């Protein structure tokens, strides 16, 4: 038995949010990336790989370094990449965020695949919620973290109810 390296609230928050980022936004961008590559929609490949680079940097920052809160979207890439400076995956994330137009779509996808494999090795794998076989396992994984967040008194990671407001 060993204690987690930070307090329970921070651990649950960081891991819950990391799971959410990898589980839904990143899964969506992966789907976008492959769909676009096959359809020669190079603009989408570029956007998806950029977003995956940023999302992986954020995930590593919160799950490896237990940083919180996550800053607003406009500052997220720079915040995460600065914090990751020196980490073995920092350059790869930075390269994807930069999105050099001289890099072909297939090269960008290959870089993303390499990054995703290494990030998942470091922080764990999440079932693909966008596939029929991964849908329920992904929900079950999310439920586990949601229950832990509730137990430690932390806010959940689900998007706020968009129907509210006004």
């Amino acid at each position, binding site marked *: 038995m060993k204690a987690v390296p930070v307090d329970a609230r921070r651990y649950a928050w960081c891991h819950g949010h990391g799971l959410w980022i990898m589980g839904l936004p990143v899964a969506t961008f992966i789907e976008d990336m492959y769909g676009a590559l096959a359809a020669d929609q190079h603009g989408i490949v570029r956007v998806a790989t950029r977003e995956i680079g940023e999302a992986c940097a954020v995930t590593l920052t919160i799950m490896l370094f237990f940083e919180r809160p*996550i800053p607003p979207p406009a500052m997220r890439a720079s915040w995460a990449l600065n914090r990751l400076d020196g980490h073995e995956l920092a350059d790869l994330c930075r390269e994807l965020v930069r999105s050099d137009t001289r890099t072909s779509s297939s090269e960008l996808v290959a870089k993303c695949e390499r990054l995703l494999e290494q990030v998942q090795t470091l922080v764990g794998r999440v079932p693909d919620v966008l596939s029929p076989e991964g849908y329920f396992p992904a929900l079950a994984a999310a439920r586990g973290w949601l229950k832990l967040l509730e137990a430690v008194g932390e806010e959940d990671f689900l998007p706020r109810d968009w129907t509210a407001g006004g």
Partner: protein
Amino acid sequence: MTTQTLRDSRRHQLEARINDYHSVTVAEVLEVIDYLRDDKDSVIAGGSLAVGLGNRLSDLDVVIAGEQSVVSSRVPLEHFVRSLRVDVWKMSKALIDDVFERAERGLSQPGRLDDLFANVDDEVNLKLLHRIAFGITLDGPGLAAGPPRDHVAIARNVVVREYAERMREHAFLAQLSVAHDRPLAAAVNARDAVEEALHAAITASGVPFTGHKWLQERLANDVPDLRILYAPFATLPAAGEEYERFVLTAIEQCEALAGITLAADRLSSQCRWANTDLVLAEAGDSPLLLSANVGGLWQLDDTEADAWRVLMAAVDGSRSSLVDWSCSGLDQAQAALCFDLYERGLLKLIWCCGVPLSDLNFATGSPR
């Protein structure tokens, strides 16, 4: 081409695509999601596949709504029809009317548009407006707006204004990042500002909005004359490369597209730094900023601690979590501290006013 012929043509195109990609018919989709329909509900297809974009892995976004529906789902309900994923938003007509009403009200008010929406960041509201306004009715009577409400105009104007306001914020942050020597944040926000400006310009020209990610495909397919404007900003400067020029050019490009001034000193008078829950904790020798909400402590040096004390003295008597400071009129140390806290997510940036459509000069066009 009449409106009805155009609708029929778009429906046939959609049918052909999902049949080609997945060997699925609209009738099969309707059968799978039928259990969600109340009497006289309409089924409306929106999203990228419905507007001639998308690809083999794109899902089909569907809204089911009508007068009889009283429950609205918080998240899309996922279905599979063979290999086609169908995401269904079940909604009451009243909720849709409410979203349009809020959007219409927002357009007529001077405040920041997203103050009226709970979560504009994920673009759910913007997409909903466009799914309803530009979507394809697959079955049912449709969701025609009652006069005098014009779904198409509202959907278009909300996106134009929202993206113009996002452009303004990115332009401001890019310039602040230059001022505080944050090359990557400066370049990222400069590129984002140009992208937001182009989204606004494309939508103003009459092209339905389908989400942020489709910008480059839209530029290539629908508005090639704008594509050339994006090219210089598609790649961020490499680490160590000159980035101030990149930011300056991006700001100039945005100003030319939108017809408004985006100089930082002008914008700083329109926005404020708002505290979250930070309080100064003077424990021991080291001044600490405490956020109880995130369970975090940040050590301040003497300059930072003094800057914080001055900021708080300026709002003496107010509860710490309720205070904010104008982004203009701060001295160097205060401005540096506020920006540092903002980029860590510990202060918020709030805008005192929106960007009214009347201030913008994006070229407008007929709906396509």
